């Protein structure tokens, strides 16, 4: 049998230029077009099939949203900023609107708050289903992925009826929401959908979360502990998988969350499997929250503030000041710091994507020592959303 060294020697003798390779390590550009990396690029230094060093390489998606937002009137920015994180586009809308509400000092009507809470929870459920789809594709359980996509489609249809759009809703606006809920029929449909998705959760458990292969593939890889996660600024399910019960919905309550009864699931292991299971429990809690909200019913009243300033949106002005608003997204703590100098455009919009914390430094450290086949699994268990980083 011809060894590799002999082949290299032969190739060199035949005049081929080969790069000198120190020992057995080589560099591998992983992504951004590779579908397992979700538009994110990592430069891996490999020894055989083990990762020796990883360098996160952001910038592929940079679209300059924050700069563009400084050139647009306050209201048109919503249609721009919601594109930051596609699977749950309602979150950037909500943080922007909440920050603007705080600067102006608007008290958003109860009905609008209720609708915003419902929309945010629907977005969370649909984002988790989207994540299950990604995870099961990476694990090779394509059936579960197709189920998740199909169930998400039901939510998309409800979103379309509510907002007029499937993915980019442009629905939550400063001062309330853009239009009222379509009627009782829509609420009944939402209730049916919630019940339907809940009834399908055991199927996901059987196929993905209690599967022997999942445990073999995910247990004990990408482990981080509590102290490390807090120091690195990790939030969301990734932090809760290490045992810290930090959830913005409980810890900095907004909208209707103080009145709702739900648990913040935590696990101690901090590995990829724990992160996946925390997300699975959270999906159940989100469905439970939606059930409670639907049982409560929408409060009566207006769906947005009545203010003469809303009559002429292009000339709409926000008084000078700054505010920070954040909500809990499926990726973690999603925040926006907004500064106004009193004009009809924002002076500065800074979005804090949760992925910027766990997508750069944490990822670089967790990948060291992993096998090449584990790289997509670790990436998926962290639920990295590259547009958060490349705002």
């Amino acid at each position, binding site marked *: 049998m011809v060894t590799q060294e002999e082949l290299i020697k032969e190739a060199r003798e035949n005049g081929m230029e080969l790069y000198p390779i120190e020992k057995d390590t080589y560099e591998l550009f992983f992504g951004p077009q590779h579908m397992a990396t979700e538009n994110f690029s990592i430069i891996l230094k490999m020894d055989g099939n083990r990762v020796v060093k990883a360098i996160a390489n*952001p*910038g592929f998606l*940079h679209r*300059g949203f*924050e*700069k*563009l937002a400084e*050139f647009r009137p306050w209201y048109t920015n919503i249609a721009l900023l919601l594109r930051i994180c596609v699977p749950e586009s309602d979150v950037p809308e909500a943080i922007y609107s909440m920050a603007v509400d*705080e600067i102006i000092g608007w008290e958003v009507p109860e009905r609008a708050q209720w609708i915003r809470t419902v929309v945010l929870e629907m977005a969370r459920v649909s984002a988790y289903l989207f994540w299950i789809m990604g995870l099961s594709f990476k694990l090779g359980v394509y059936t579960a992925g197709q189920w998740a996509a199909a169930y998400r489609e039901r939510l998309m249809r409800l979103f379309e009826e509510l907002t007029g759009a499937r993915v980019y809703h442009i629905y939550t606006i400063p001062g309330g929401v853009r239009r009222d809920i379509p009627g009782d029929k829509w609420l009944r449909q939402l209730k049916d959908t919630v019940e339907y998705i809940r009834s399908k959760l055991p199927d996901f458990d059987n196929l993905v979360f209690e599967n022997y292969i999942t445990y073999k593939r995910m247990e004990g890889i990408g482990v981080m502990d509590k102290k490390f996660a*807090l*120091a*690195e*600024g990790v*939030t969301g399910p990734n932090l809760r998988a290490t045992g*810290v019960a*930090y959830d913005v919905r409980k*810890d*900095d309550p907004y909208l209707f969350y103080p009145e709702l009864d739900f648990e913040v699931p935590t696990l101690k292991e901090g590995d990829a499997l724990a992160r996946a299971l925390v997300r699975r429990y959270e999906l159940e809690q989100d469905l439970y929250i939606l059930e409670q909200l639907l049982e409560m019913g929408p409060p009566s009243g207006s769906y947005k503030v009545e203010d003469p300033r809303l009559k002429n949106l292009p000339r709409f002005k926000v008084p000078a000041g*700054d505010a*920070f608003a*954040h909500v809990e997204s499926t990726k973690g*703590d999603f*925040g926006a*710091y907004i*500064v106004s100098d009193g004009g009809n455009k924002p*002076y*500065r919009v*800074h979005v*804090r994507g949760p992925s*910027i*914390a766990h997508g*750069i*430094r944490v990822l670089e450290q967790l990948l060291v020592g992993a096998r090449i086949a584990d790289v997509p699994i670790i990436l998926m268990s962290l639920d990295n959303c590259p547009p958060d*980083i*490349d705002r």
Partner: protein
Amino acid sequence: MTWEVGEEIVKKILEKAPYAEGRVRRERRLEFKIPAERIRDFLMLMKENNFPLMLQISAVDWVKDGEIELVYHLMNVELRTHAMVKVRIPRDLDKAKMPTVRDIYPAAETYERDVHDFFGVYFEGNEKMEMPWILDDPERGLYPHRKDFDMLGYVKKKYKILDRFDENKDKYVI
């Protein structure tokens, strides 16, 4: 609106840091203003006072004052409190320098690289400052988030084939 827990936290921190100004903005929101050279002392103090989580470092370019404002967002997980630590530094490129805080909050490394790439603030002691970040090589050294960045000039230079930028017009809607 008064919020007693917040008042107590502010009082406790201001006792140890007399150089700082602090106030309660609203429930669960604190704000501190400190001189730039004391940032490391102050953040160390904040970490000792149970603010383990750094959410982000925002920068705002106040071009009229000739200053860049850096806002360090910290979160207290136990007392459910968010604190903003505001620092102002001159915006001239050779004076816009800050000491790094990545040994206090490791997460700050990424945010510092972000601020450096887009605002040109140099964080002394952060080794990764020189490494490529989001912008491409030709864009480095331009600092696009500064308010005096000539966006139209840049677009014209980069996309020469676009002839829709009329020289005689003095206003463009971008």
